[in-house]
């Protein structure tokens, strides 16, 4: 299934579950996006920025020492950690802020959890000269103080959100409220393949460059497609961008890795697809973490970027279809992988991306010598070293 349909559905998921005030904005956005999608000038401008400013294409690097350790499989890392600002998030924000500019919007708003999307949005607005307001849960502003400073340095205003759980989901609520109030001049840059139609599609399209490049690069390196691709899934944008160009290649096994936090049987995890159930949150129908009354539960992961109780609707559809396998890796497994990749490859991965690496370690026995595996290394771990050092030192 390749969606979405006219009303933004991926099978039974997706759609537009928003206040009526936002419906005209979503229609306007859809129309504008459909226009630029076919606009050569837009793509030329976007491609030039991605090349010279973001640093694309990012390398596909063969992690030989890791491969040897895993019995001679060939492990390739898609180095999204080497983009400007250090994570895949920038692929999407540059695209959306360019789109906003085309639409004549002057004010950009965004939500952020760990701060990576906020930093990427603030960077794009600095580059393209637009006002930027970023909503961030108060707790996250404390946990991620360095990213708050980065956003402020690049000219954004960071608004701490004190309602609810004071984390990402509440920041999204607040950003949507701002949008409802200021729809005329404001563009809301959503950071993942979540939210109402057409966002899941727009973000997927802008992130698909990851998978497109990978396909070309792996063919050049191995003369064939990989046997398996692994990517971590919070909202799911890096995974969606990586998987999408491979969906029709049925021989390529696709594995999405969620955060099991303290364990999927505990109340402290973010394994939405693994342990959640379908529902509606933030404008879209998808798997959710919810209680028996449909109230949204808090999510947990040591990786702040995976800490979200929802997930992209297209992932929900891909799960039900069985095209992508979704699994979960807990905090300690992710930390082990974080250390291992740092030690034997000299690459400190983001804790989010470390979940994908951890899953490969768990799957070692399923591969034989010469098998080709790609991991989407969605971000670099500089932002996490303080957290990790605190945990390791007890």
């Amino acid at each position, binding site marked *: 299934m390749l969606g979405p349909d006219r009303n933004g559905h991926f099978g039974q998921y997706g759609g537009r579950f928003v206040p009526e005030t936002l419906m005209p904005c979503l229609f306007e956005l859809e129309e504008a996006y459909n226009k630029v999608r076919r606009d050569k000038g837009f793509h030329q401008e976007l491609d030039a920025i991605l090349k010279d400013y973001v640093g694309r294409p990012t390398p596909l690097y063969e992690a030989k020492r890791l491969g040897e350790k895993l019995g001679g499989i060939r492990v390739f890392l898609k180095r999204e950690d080497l983009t400007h600002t250090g994570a895949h998030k920038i692929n999407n924000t540059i695209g959306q802020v360019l789109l906003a500019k085309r639409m004549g919007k002057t004010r950009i708003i965004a939500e952020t959890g760990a701060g990576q999307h906020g930093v990427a949005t603030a960077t794009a607005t600095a580059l393209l000269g637009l006002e930027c307001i970023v909503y961030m849960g108060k707790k996250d502003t404390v946990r991620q103080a360095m990213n708050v400073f980065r956003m402020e340095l690049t000219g954004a205003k960071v608004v701490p959100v004190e*309602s609810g759980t004071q984390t990402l989901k509440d920041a999204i609520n607040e950003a949507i409220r701002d949008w409802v109030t200021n729809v005329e001049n404001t563009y809301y840059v959503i950071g993942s393949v979540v939210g109402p139609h057409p966002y899941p599609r727009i973000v997927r399209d802008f992130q698909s460059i990851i998978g497109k490049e990978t396909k070309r690069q792996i063919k050049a390196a191995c003369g064939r497609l990989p046997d398996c691709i692994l990517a971590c899934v919070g909202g799911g944008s890096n995974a969606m961008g990586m998987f999408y160009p491979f969906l029709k290649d049925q021989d390529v096994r696709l594995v999405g890795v969620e955060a099991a936090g303290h364990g999927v049987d505990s109340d402290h995890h973010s394994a939405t697809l693994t342990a959640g159930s379908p529902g*509606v949150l933030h404008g879209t129908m998808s798997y959710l973490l919810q209680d028996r009354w*449909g109230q949204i539960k808090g999510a947990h992961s040591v990786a702040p970027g995976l800490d979200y109780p929802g997930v992209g609707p297209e992932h929900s559809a891909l799960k039900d279809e069985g095209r992508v396998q979704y699994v979960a890796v807990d905090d300690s497994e992710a930390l082990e992988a974080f250390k291992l990749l740092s030690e034997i490859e000299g690459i400190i991965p983001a804790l989010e991306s470390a979940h994908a690496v951890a899953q490969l370690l768990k799957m070692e026995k399923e591969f034989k010598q010469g098998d080709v595996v790609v991991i989407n290394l969605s971000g670099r771990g500089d932002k996490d070293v303080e957290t990790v050092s605190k945990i390791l030192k007890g």
Partner: protein
Amino acid sequence: MKGNRITKAFEMCRERGEAAFIPFVTAGDPDLDTTYDIVLTMAENGADIIELGIPFSDPLADGPTIQAASQRALQAGVNPDEILDVVELIRKESQCPIVLMGYYNPVLKYGLSAFAERVSEAGADGTIIPDLPLEEAGEWQRVARENGIANIFLVAPNTPQKRVEKISKRSKGFLYYVSVTGITGARKELPEELTQGLERVRSVSPVPVAVGFGISSPEQVHMLKGHADGIIVGSAIVKIIEANAQAKKGLLKEVGAFVKEMKEATTLPSLSSH
């Protein structure tokens, strides 16, 4: 069909030359016993229809006042079953129409059919689901209709006229006009384009049009007289409840007095009749 109670309320108001006054309260804020008393107090003091909020953890169409009320109610542990039990108790005392206002996920999680049956059984008359626009509402509308529940849609100032026509045709009981583009919350002034907006919507709507979001004073109600069939007031009442949560007697007295004053404003002669 119970939706008729809503229709009848509007008809009676029209005959008397009044606008329907529709106060809102979040169920379970501060607790359900108090909600029971508040609803009956509102009905006794002239409320024509009562909007009862089912709290949700992530109420993205509401402002800080109602969001805080939802959080208080959820902290007190209320759930839709208990709320509908209270509705059933209220029904034994009052025939004032009750419209449930809640987000889609709790309804979905309950099960659309099961929820509609329980709502009907409890004696509530309608639903307002702010995050369920026309395109996604088909299934709920069908189930609601089968159970005699009026599903009320919302339109906003930025809703194109063609869409207003489409939505108003499918809205049962009444149509909810969101007065200020944006979120709920008490405001001191109503936007100038409001009366024009209301005219635009009323000119095509086959059902009565009630206006809400941001109305907090009798003066505003009086101003709206003649421009709307119904007037919805939420945040202003929730604020009274918030301020008096520790003293239930005073709370009921204040809510009663406020509702009475607001309702009386709907009976005054219109300020203008152009």
